[in-house]
């Protein structure tokens, strides 16, 4: 869910929401979203974008350019020509990633194309820098096919230490991620799959622990079979979830091996097809109601359809049901309704409710970790290492039904996740930099902390303008 961003821009927190009818609450939420949207347009105009490049070396006088540029730089180029791996030491490649999108599935907006995707990618780049200390370059590209996308990414890989794929439509995103991971020697990540899935799995691990259950024995229903849930299914199976006790449900109902569209899936979406063959033991058929009967866990990550999950669905689940309703901006069921129907633990994708399943908890730390380890790829073991460490992070502050996952205000967790990722890369033998846990942790703490200092220093020096008052920008906009 790339639409879920960091907390600072969040609407008022749950505790302070005024009581009222659900309709009034929905209206308030809509008003808040509209207000934020207007403000975002004004501020984008005011600042002319959200990121810029900043030198990282001193420039005492123009003479220094004989070092930073010609003629001195030629020696650096010669060295890289001899040994391309030196590009990770003599240039900023070690800490630079490309945020690549074709704009084919941007937020909940759909296929709006690469240009319209740019503000989202800029925001992502800001998150990368602010949370992960990673230099991220927005690269929305206009391409006609997955093949063209892949060859374009392949062509630009020499400039980058990693690739973050973003907002690419399902199911083509699966093949693109798989194929690029094979072709490139640098880590490739698709946040809409892996970021959301890792945060979901982290939350589930803690929710199951809180209710004294385990992944191996629970029965889980995933509503929605898009990028996030197909990745979540894969990760759950990797954690030992019994495939027979896992059911996926989409618009056509429960996914199973004899569903009418299964041959079409074989052609168009082999990832979903494979899960159709593997999951849903006992041959349940029908809709969500048939799937959730007796289930321990429901993870809804669907195309936003308010009311997709109804109270009776929750009531039909097993004792102490766990409900993750992750659609943005409107969850498939509102937390108060889910709890009223008996849900023991509820999570959403929103920052104004407890338990936000937020990919911003994951991707900055994962990239910090793989970049510091100079990992060659990001296998699922690394994703799971990040999820487990995120779950531990919440545990350290005390696990409750309202604190399943760390919030964005618990930044001490992120370097720990980065270090766990680095450790996993070393363990898996895909790290070019085999640092110790403490070295990974120290590096991540330094680099992740530096960005906040940088932002403060730029503001103090007057190099970034203070945020204009909301009322002032509204007046100017009017």
């Amino acid at each position: 869910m790339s639409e879920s961003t960091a907390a600072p821009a969040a609407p008022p927190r749950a505790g302070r929401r005024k009581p009222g009818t659900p309709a009034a609450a929905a209206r308030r939420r809509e008003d808040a979203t509209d207000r934020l949207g207007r403000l975002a347009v004004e501020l984008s105009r005011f600042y002319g974008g959200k990121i810029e490049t900043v030198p990282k070396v001193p420039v005492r006088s123009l003479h220094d350019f004989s070092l930073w540029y010609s003629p001195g730089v030629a020696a650096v180029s010669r060295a890289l020509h001899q040994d391309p791996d030196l590009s990770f030491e003599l240039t900023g490649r070690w800490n630079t990633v490309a945020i690549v999108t074709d704009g084919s599935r941007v937020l909940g907006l759909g296929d709006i194309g690469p240009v319209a995707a740019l503000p989202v990618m800029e925001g992502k780049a800001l998150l990368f820098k602010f949370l992960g200390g990673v230099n991220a370059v927005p690269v929305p590209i206009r391409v006609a096919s997955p093949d063209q996308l892949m060859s374009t990414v392949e062509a630009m890989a020499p400039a980058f230490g990693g690739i973050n794929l973003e907002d690419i439509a399902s199911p083509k995103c699966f093949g693109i991620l798989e194929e690029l991971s094979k072709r490139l020697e640098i880590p490739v990540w698709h946040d809409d799959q892996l970021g959301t899935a890792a945060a979901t799995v982290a939350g589930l691990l803690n929710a199951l622990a809180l209710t004294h259950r385990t992944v191996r024995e629970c029965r889980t229903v995933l509503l929605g079979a898009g990028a996030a849930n197909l990745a979540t299914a894969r990760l759950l199976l990797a954690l030992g979830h019994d495939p027979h006790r896992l059911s996926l449900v989409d618009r056509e109902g429960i996914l199973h091996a004899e569903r009418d569209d299964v041959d079409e899936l074989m052609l168009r979406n082999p990832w979903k097809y494979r899960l159709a063959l593997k999951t849903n033991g006992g041959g349940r058929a029908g809709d969500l109601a048939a799937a959730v009967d007796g289930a321990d866990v429901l993870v809804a990550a669907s195309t936003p359809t308010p009311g997709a999950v109804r109270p009776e669905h929750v009531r039909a689940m097993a004792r102490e049901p766990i409900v993750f309703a992750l659609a943005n901006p409107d969850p498939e069921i509102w937390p108060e309704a889910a709890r009223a129907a008996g849900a023991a633990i509820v999570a959403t994708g929103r920052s104004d409710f407890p338990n936000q399943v937020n990919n911003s908890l994951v991707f900055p730390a994962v990239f910090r970790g793989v970049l510091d380890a100079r990992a060659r790829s990001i296998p699922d073991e690394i994703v799971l290492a990040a999820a487990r460490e995120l779950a531990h992070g919440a545990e350290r502050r005390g696990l409750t039904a309202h604190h399943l996952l760390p919030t964005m205000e618990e930044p001490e967790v992120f370097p720990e996740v980065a270090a766990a990722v680095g450790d996993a890369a070393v363990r898996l033998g895909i790290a070019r930099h085999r640092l110790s846990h403490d070295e990974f942790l120290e590096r991540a703490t330094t680099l992740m902390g530096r960005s906040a200092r940088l932002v403060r220093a730029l503001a103090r020096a007057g190099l970034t303008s203070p945020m204009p008052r909301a009322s002032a920008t509204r007046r100017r906009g009017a």
Partner: protein
Amino acid sequence: MTPDEPAAGDGAAVPAPAAPIHLRPARVPDVPTIVPLLLRLKRLNEEFDPLLKVRDDAEAQAAQVLRQQIADPKAVVLAAEGIGPDIGKVVGFVRAVVRERPFYAPEYEGVILDIYLLPLYRRRGVGEFLLREVSDALKAKGAGIVTAEFPAQNEIAGRFYAKRGFRPITEIHARSL
């Protein structure tokens, strides 16, 4: 992107399918259970080309054609029964006919028109087994070569047959009128 093959085992010399099925000639009482499988296959074909659009009356047609061919000595219709919980259930079928070749030798060709297996029986060598059995049955009816018809865009089927020594010999090109 490499979707799963519909019915392909890996080795060419698998003596018996890894997922045992019971293969036998189809009988008229099987027709109602084979029809949905045949329609699944035709609907899959529809995905490849609009000129393979399935007719509204395809279900009735399928039943009629199957009944005819089950009785036709020049046709082979085999039913694959499942095992375990699927015992007695038809989980796949093969349909083929023997066609005369007036100008070419060998004189008779066995044409595989349909091979369909439910997804859970795929990738376990069953398709391989079905292909071998139908080839034997066609040979017994006098066919000197065996051919297979499938949509030109169906690369999965193309790979399945290519792996087993088939090559394209005739192309059928089409356009609307």
